[in-house]
């Protein structure tokens, strides 16, 4: 049996004529924390969006927990799964977005409960106590009845992370979750993520916070023009980059 949580093989993605992902191979085991770095437009976001089928992809396969995501090949023909099935598979991964994307018409608690009730078919009281547990974990239990508009950016992002985690995904995806935040709010969110890492959550993070990537990750992936440019131990990659590209990229990013 394959013990990998995530297994990406030869992933290709085109937008019209432009190929944005040109063959990605990557795997993650239980408990891995992988940071994806790379310059703007290198395809980091697109890779994450393919993993939970927010984007269709053109070739290759993505397996999560031994399930083929999004497509199945029968009799040699590649077919997109039906919407219902894809929706179910999306719950295997949790995703936190740069823009938080909390549902503005629901309180913090309701935001978290929605997926539990509608996707996991939980009873409301059960969902409610899980929501509270996670709000507590991200330090926002007191704000459980606040609407997103009444929370600061950092608080919104923490609720958004709690909403994703509460679904107990096999794999959490984070796409630059701090880059829309004021500098003084960044830390509270990073602390939550560190905490999750410590507890063994499997996570794939796109980030521009180099120091954070350095501290938290078990492995770093450097994306370059739709390919994986370099991959390995964070210490080695940051201190002794093998490729010129990475060296250049690291020089231009502030390491604070």
């Amino acid at each position, binding site marked *: 049996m394959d013990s990998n949580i995530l297994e990406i093989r030869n992933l290709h993605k085109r937008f019209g004529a432009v190929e944005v992902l040109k063959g990605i191979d990557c795997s993650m085991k239980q408990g891995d924390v992988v940071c994806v770095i790379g310059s703007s437009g290198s395809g980091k976001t697109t890779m994450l969006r393919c993993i939970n*089928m927010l984007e269709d992809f053109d070739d290759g396969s993505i397996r999560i927990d031994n399930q083929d995501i999004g497509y199945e090949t029968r009799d040699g023909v590649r077919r997109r799964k039906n919407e219902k099935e894809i929706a179910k598979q999306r719950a295997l991964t*949790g*995703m936190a977005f740069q823009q938080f994307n909390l*549902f503005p018409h629901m309180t913090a608690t309701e935001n978290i409960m929605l997926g539990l009730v509608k996707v996991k078919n939980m009873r409301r009281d059960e969902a409610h106590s899980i929501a509270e547990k996670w709000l507590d974990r991200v330090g926002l239990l007191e704000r459980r009845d606040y609407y997103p508009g009444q929370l600061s950016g950092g608080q919104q992002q923490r609720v*958004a992370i709690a909403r*994703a985690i509460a679904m107990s995904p096999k794999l959490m995806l984070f796409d630059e979750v701090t880059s829309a935040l004021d500098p003084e709010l960044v830390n509270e969110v990073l602390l939550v993520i560190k905490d999750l890492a410590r507890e063994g959550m499997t996570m794939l993070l796109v980030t521009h916070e180099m120091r954070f990537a350095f501290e938290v990750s078990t492995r770093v992936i450097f994306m370059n023009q739709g390919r994986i440019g370099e991959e390995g131990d964070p210490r080695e990659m940051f201190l002794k980059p093998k490729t010129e590209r990475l060296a250049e990229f690291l020089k231009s990013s502030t390491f604070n």
Partner: protein
Amino acid sequence: MDYVLNFSVVWRSFDHLLGGLGLSLLLALGSILIGMAIGLVVSFALISPVAIARNLAGAYVTVTRNTPLLVLVLFTYFALPDLGVRLGDIESFVATLAIYSGGYLAEVFRAGMLSVPKGLSEAGQAIGLTRMQIRFSIIMPIMFRNVLPALGSTVISLFKDTSLAAAIAVPELTYQARKINVESFRVVETWIIASLLYVCTCAVLAMLFRRVERHLAIPR
């Protein structure tokens, strides 16, 4: 001029006017509820990725919005029986106004739908909601709040359009007013009272909508 206002004939038939107003409201309510259902479906078609659905919905909206309501009313009432569809006068008017308002409301809903950030439906997808669940739990509640002001003014103008039911002898407010005119010829007085009834009803409707808007406003 020496025209002397005399409201006594109007007061004598005031309960007829009120009854007419009640029927106007019922006609509006019935047709707008159906119209909203039509509008919702059509608005989803308008932003659908399927070209045929988009074009059909677009044609529907174009025709309903550009044809005088009176023509549509006469069509349903007089031409449809020739084609085997026979509705009573009230039913036929409600059906017509519903179809007519469907075109207007579809546009209102479409604009509201486009104002819901795309990230929200993606967030819904990311926690595993199906497309229908996203529509009903996320897009529609937000869209509905966004469109309330536009919806309010559309509903008010549709309410006023019920006056055309008089043309096919549905005894709503305008019909009652014209009936009084035929009897008394106190046209000025009758229309003053009838228009005040319309204005007040519209004001109440507008107030109700503002209240709903305030009630549903998302705290921030």
